């Protein structure tokens, strides 16, 4: 029986990479527009989606940390390729940041996480591992577990999600009311697909996210390989894309079943 409804409301902690992805994806979706119109439509689409996400949050809010919030720079993505007044971009960044409850994090609490016994070395390494901003999100997630509800940390960073899976089982952090077991790291698109199956995001929008991710992945890899993808990697990606499209088709089917269209 596939999951088509949210069983409980949770706290939501959002990583900057999610905002960057949404900005680029919506910008790409509105590519026929230009200048200030493009910026306004992109901003509005982001705010609409964040509002949907807020409605699934136990406290009706989205959370992030101050340091992560400052990382959000819309001009670093596709918007940067357009001629736009810097003041407008700054206003957009502020509008988006304003949607979040912010928590400041002390360097000590981040250092504490890095020094946990048996922490995976490649993840806590100060230069090659997770950044202080990433660690601040873990700290925020743990902080929110004190309220007794589950906390979903949404990111696209696999290392951060892997660390969240490791941290939640550390017994030394189980100091009531803090309960790390309630911290759940989740890929942003997997969460959005649950919203999609729950009929809160349109199939058109969800397929826009997935297509964007696929295109973006191909572009980045081609860029990394300078000229073109090596055939083995290319074939591997094509396989994954086919598999993702296949499961997404199943997700659409579940949604239609839920709506009674296929019943």
């Amino acid at each position, binding site marked *: 029986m596939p999951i088509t409804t949210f069983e409980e409301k949770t706290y939501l902690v959002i990583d900057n990479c999610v905002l960057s992805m949404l900005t680029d994806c919506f910008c790409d979706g509105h590519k026929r527009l230009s200048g200030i119109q493009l910026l306004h439509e992109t901003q509005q689409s982001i705010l609409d989606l964040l509002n949907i996400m807020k409605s699934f949050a136990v406290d009706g809010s989205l959370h992030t940390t101050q340091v992560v919030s400052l990382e959000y720079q819309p001009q670093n993505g596709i918007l940067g390729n357009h001629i736009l007044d810097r003041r407008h971009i700054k206003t957009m960044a502020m509008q988006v940041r304003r949607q979040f409850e912010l928590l400041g994090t002390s360097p000590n609490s981040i250092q504490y996480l890095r020094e946990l016994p048996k922490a995976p070395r490649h993840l806590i390494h100060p230069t090659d591992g997770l950044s202080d901003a990433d660690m601040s999100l873990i700290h925020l997630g743990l902080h929110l577990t004190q309220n007794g509800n589950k906390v979903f940390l949404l990111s696209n960073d696999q290392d951060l999600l*892997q660390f969240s899976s490791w941290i939640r089982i550390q017994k030394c952090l189980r100091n009531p009311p803090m309960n790390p077991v309630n911290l759940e790291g989740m890929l942003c698109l997997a969460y959005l697909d649950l919203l999609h199956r729950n009929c809160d995001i349109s199939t058109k929008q969800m397929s826009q996210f997935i297509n964007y991710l696929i295109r973006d992945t191909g572009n980045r890899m081609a860029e990394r390989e300078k000229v073109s993808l090596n055939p083995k990697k290319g074939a591997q990606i094509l396989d994954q894309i086919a598999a993702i499209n296949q499961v997404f088709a199943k997700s659409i089917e579940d949604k239609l079943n839920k709506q009674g269209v296929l019943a």
Partner: protein
Amino acid sequence: MSENNLLKGLMDEFMASFSQDSQDAMMRRVNAERLIRLYAGQFIDQHQAESIRILPDQRLAGEDVADFLVQVDDYDLRIVLIDSTNGVPQLTVKYIQEWLDLLEDNPSTAFMIVVWTTDELLALPFSMVQLQTLLKSPEQVEDCLLNVTPLNQLIPVIIQQQVKNWEIDEDLSQKPDERGRDCYSIFAEKIGQAIDKEANRRYKIEERLKAAQEFPYQKEKQVILSILEDALEGKSAKELEYQLTRLPRRGSI
């Protein structure tokens, strides 16, 4: 982060959302998969000498029975995840036949490792003989569950068990230098013969003849023997690899 990993991660989470019947079960599975990859990665880093790989277990034909394939040298282990709703491992006999079929179909698979989606990833390895026994005497399943061990402790033990320990003659093991010299002299003699043979080859084409005459065979021999000497003194494979790859192709040292 690799973009390829992002697609893979998304696929895993999508699949978990389809294979599990609740949000909690989905997250238990997602967390268990991430931890398996984390522990496997750490184990692989610590055991560079063995060639160990962990892959999703995708069979070309038939049902997907296992979730991960751990390839170690010339054998492999299969990992199958079972959801545990209350943190306590439970096992029903219904899985045993399909695990047995999988082991029978794949002679290179030494063990089927069952992992429960508990915080510690409690696990239990099954060989073909053990599965056959359980199939005949299902009442023993409960007793088996008393032996569950966290996965990150279990895998090193299993891999260690599979390593062949050679019995070394006590006399030989007490005289490593003599053994080393023997090995060195045998190799030196053989490479000397090979190089002499090469040096005395006859060529019809003049350019080849000239090239062979100019090739510094003796210097090459010295370099190779000095690398062998380093190997016998215990230099690491990485250092030796560096020395060997520095050998010029045309022999100009």
